[in-house]
């Protein structure tokens, strides 16, 4: 089965890259964006088809490497 892991900065953590991107969109004349935060997406193919096993191993992967929980949150989506 396939999975997607989304890693984002926690609220309140300064995101200078997101701010720069937001500024660039404004300079392109794209109006209506109140705020923008940058994150990361990991597209993952899993050997298992069992959602409980998949969820468990992806959480493990996030906690051990994919996210730094000092400043980042993660979400696991199975597809």
């Amino acid at each position: 089965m396939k999975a997607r892991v989304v890693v984002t900065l926690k609220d309140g953590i300064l995101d200078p890259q997101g701010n720069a991107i937001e500024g660039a969109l404004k300079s392109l004349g794209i109006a209506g964006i109140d705020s923008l935060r940058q994150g990361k997406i990991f597209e993952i193919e899993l050997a298992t088809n069992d959602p409980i096993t998949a969820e468990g191993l992806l959480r493990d992967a996030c906690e051990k490497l994919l996210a730094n929980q000092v400043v980042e949150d993660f979400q696991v989506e199975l597809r």
Partner: protein
Amino acid sequence: MSEENITGTMKAAIILFPGSNRERDALRAVEKIAKAKPCVVWHGEHTLPAGTDLAVLPGGFSYGDYLRCGAIAARAPIMDAVRAHAGRGGLVLGICNGFQILVEAGLLPGVLMRNANLRFICRMQHLTVERADTPFTARYAKGQIIKVAIAHGEGNYVADGETIARIEGDGRVAFRYCDARAGREGGANPNASVNDIAGIYSERFNVLGLMPHPENLIDPLVGGTDGRGLFESLAGFTKAA
């Protein structure tokens, strides 16, 4: 370079990761100023050489800064040995990318985020030495202003409020960014690091991580010698031990 110091008493292991690039600078400072006997240890090793007193994680761009700075190096096989060494009270020094690796490995709290101005900053920088009673700073004076090099894109130290309060309360800030007169205003802090933190200690003061490069300021030929104190402190520490 003469090799007269090769017979130093302290044994130092310089850990080499793919993408480290300051290992020779670190080795030279450790050998010539700390009077230690250095060796280079590949990250894939599972043990430090017997009798290692000091492990040094040098600067560079381990794994090309992929994922997060230091994140992948922090999971290298040698890091379990470095963690065990620190647990026994052994000395660990992480400089720049080495500091990033130490926080990612959980040997020091917090994290180094992108500089607030998004620029890679390579320049000379003043620091205050926050305390002079540790193995790394005994040859400095408390409050001394030193001028050393910085060269980083991710040096913005961040931790949650509780962690910062604990670090400050325990006196675990090693160095703070400042200007030539110890002022902290007007751009003295290059990267927006919390409380101008440039380096921190572990709870037992045997692990030091810092963004600046004292190992590059040991020879007047390259613009200053304010980094020597750190390595002289290490030399003095071995004699006392």
